[in-house]
């Protein structure tokens, strides 16, 4: 959506008959306000698109959960709720710093804008790092999708022995009966979190782009649209996780 911010460069005569243009006003808009409104609406339309893009996977979740609730109750034990919780906090905090960054851009506080962008980026990396730890555990436990689902004993014990205390001997531990097709849960889990992860990575890329532009001093109280739009995107990515966390980790 940043396109609106750039002046098209293939027109031979750049400032024909338009008088003085603000530097960030593209040639085909009359005012910066119109340009901002266009960008904002474009971003919201893009967000609507994003929501529907994810909706397919949420629908798959709903269908399988409705048809096989026992699979979801059983399989969600394999997910690490505390890591999921930490990640939720990390993302929520990053949304705060992002929003604060947008505010700094609006009032022209370049130093704090840069600081908040850095914090947001670090939160993004922290989220992906924790995600990596979780994925790695799934890989080691053989709790993957499709044919990759054949959990080893360690995985099952890890999933179901919580609450029994660590000092219980193995003989006391009897895992619940496994329902059929638990692998479907992991198919949905990896698709949803994987796609979300890709969105986080793309978001980090956009944040770096903002960072470069802020160091360059592009933003001012008159022109802060890109920060605002990337902020919207970042909040949506956050929001999707806010749905993923309870749906996958918490609902038993």
């Amino acid at each position, binding site marked *: 959506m940043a396109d609106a911010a750039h002046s098209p460069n293939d027109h031979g005569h750049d400032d024909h008959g338009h008088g003085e243009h603000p530097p960030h006003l593209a040639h*085909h808009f009359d005012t910066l306000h119109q340009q901002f409104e266009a960008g904002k609406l474009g971003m919201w339309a893009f967000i609507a*698109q994003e929501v529907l893009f994810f909706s397919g996977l949420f629908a798959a979740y709903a269908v399988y959960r409705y048809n096989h609730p026992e699979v979801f109750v059983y399989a969600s034990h394999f997910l690490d709720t505390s890591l999921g919780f930490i990640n939720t906090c990390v993302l929520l905090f990053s949304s705060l710093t992002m929003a604060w960054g947008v505010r700094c851009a609006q009032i022209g506080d370049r130093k704090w804008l840069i600081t908040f962008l850095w914090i947001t980026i670090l939160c993004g990396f922290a989220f992906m790092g924790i995600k990596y730890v979780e994925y790695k555990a799934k890989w080691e436990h053989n709790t993957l999708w499709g044919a990759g689902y054949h959990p080893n004993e360690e995985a099952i014990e890890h999933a179901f022995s919580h609450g029994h205390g660590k000092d219980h001997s193995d003989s006391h531990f009897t895992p619940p009966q496994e329902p059929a097709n638990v692998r479907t849960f992991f198919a949905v889990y990896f698709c949803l979190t994987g*796609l979300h992860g890709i969105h986080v990575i793309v978001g980090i890329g956009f944040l770096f782009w903002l960072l470069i532009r802020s160091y360059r001093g592009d933003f001012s109280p008159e022109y802060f649209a890109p920060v605002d739009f990337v902020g919207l995107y970042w909040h949506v990515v956050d929001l999707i996780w806010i749905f993923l966390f309870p749906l996958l980790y918490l609902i038993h």
Partner: protein
Amino acid sequence: MSHEPNGYPPGDNYLNRTKGFLSWITTLDHKRIGVMYLCSVLFFFLVGGTFAIMLRTELLTPKSTTQMPQDTNYKGQHEDFPQKFLFEKDTYNQLFTLHGAIMVFLVIIPSIPASLGNIILPIMLGAKDVAFPRLNLWSYYLYIGGTICFLVTLATTGLDTGWTFYTPYSSSVEYSHTNVIMATMGAFILGFSSIFTGLNFLVTIHTMRPAGMTWFRMPLFLWALYATSIIQVLATPVLGITLLMLIVERAFSIGIFDPKLGGDPVLFQHFFWFYSHPAVYIMIVPGMGVASELITTFSRKTIFGYRQIALSSVGLALIGFLVWGHHLFTSTQSNIANMIFSFLTFFVAIPSAIKVFNWLATLYKGSISFQTPMLYGLAFIILFTIGGLTGIFHATLSTSIHLHDTYFVVAHFHYVMMGSALIAFIGGIFYWWPKFTGKLYSDNLGRIAAVIIFIGFNGTFFPQFVMGAKGMPRRYQNYYAEYQPYHRASTYGSYFMATGFVLAGFTLLQSLVRGKKAPPNPWGGATLEWQTPSPPPTENFYHTPVIDDQPYNYDRQTYLGPEKGWRDDHYAHEWEDMVAHHDIAGTGNGNGQTNGNGH
């Protein structure tokens, strides 16, 4: 008024402002991007059309095979049928798959919005460009990326899943040995091209209308594109995620659609049609917009029921989201769901009929001139009515199950997609051709081509209704000899229609070489694009126009002869600009003789 508005030399326009291949592929000008889309779409129309002709040729004769021995023809006489006519059955499967996939994803979906829409939408709005010119160019590159994926598929293994990519056939490497991932990747990328075009148009219409152009003073083509954009932005991502899941399924056996891994193949059908039914409206609604423009312009009469036509476009867009289940009547969907979807599907008839009746009312007592674009406009009304009415057969559960997967369905959607959407596209090209090329084509040749296409089209697809109702299944290479007369009629019809398309193409190409210079307004159109030179300058207008009326006011126009076209009193200011800029043939000041309705 200065003699050279904006200081540009006479003859300057968007085609000659900059030159060279590089200036085209890096352009941010919506008109150039539209022209590039137009060329690409027409190229793939040729490819997909060639496949269609190959299919029809194969279907000239029934075959006698070990599975289906037959030795008497439809007259009951003995006849030795060949075991194979032109193609192996696998080749045949690939031909109809690629015909469908190319025509849907590469031709019809981008046809009117991305090519004509790109060229015309900002001009109709009096704007200098779309809201996001750079995103617009990106959309075109994504389109090219998608076409490359399809071409690679075509050049390597082909594709034999049918254009619908139904699972588990498509998702399992054991079943389909063709390069499904490459093709679905192509469709995925094309989907995003379409989303970004829709997003661009949506924002442009919302934020860049000129002074005085309220929502209900917008030309109906813009209303149609607006409704289309909503569908593109909201439905296409669902196709995106569906194809992504299919790709992941095929590549990593993730088990969402594959029943062997606990997945649900029917879920794919739900997802696919949640997009692909609205996609039908992505195809037809812009066509309706073009038809509205053609019919009002060539009737020289304000469109009848403007608001109803405008809102029925949006109505179609919304209803389109609620009827996907009618593609699953035979796919284990529950009876309750079938009844609900059947009920909802009938609602499509309301906005469709509103449009048709309003077009007819516009024609009534209009001053109709049968120029080439108008012939396509009239063909659209007739063919869309047939296509729409046969849709009711499919909405009705009892008949739909009987007609499921027969040639009746094939004929129905060709009447809608080709007879309506593509005919409107061709009509739109003939309508706006003088505007964006600056050349007039031979109206007589264009009219002959239009008539041939219309007759050929009905010759091709009407027999398919009959044989479909008699039980001929779709997608089969072989058939019982009793169907041969219909197949023959259909094939000969398709040859006739192809001749028409060749002639139409010749007409347009000839105009580029030998055509006369087009006046700004050759047809007497009332919308804004006719108030600027043909071809328009890069910024579309010398001065941003102001709107003070509904879009179809023909009362203030004067015909100044074939060289000068029509002059609109309200836009006298623009006319003076064009005279000053030598965009209008001759040297007069534009206040020439009044010929009234001089056609």
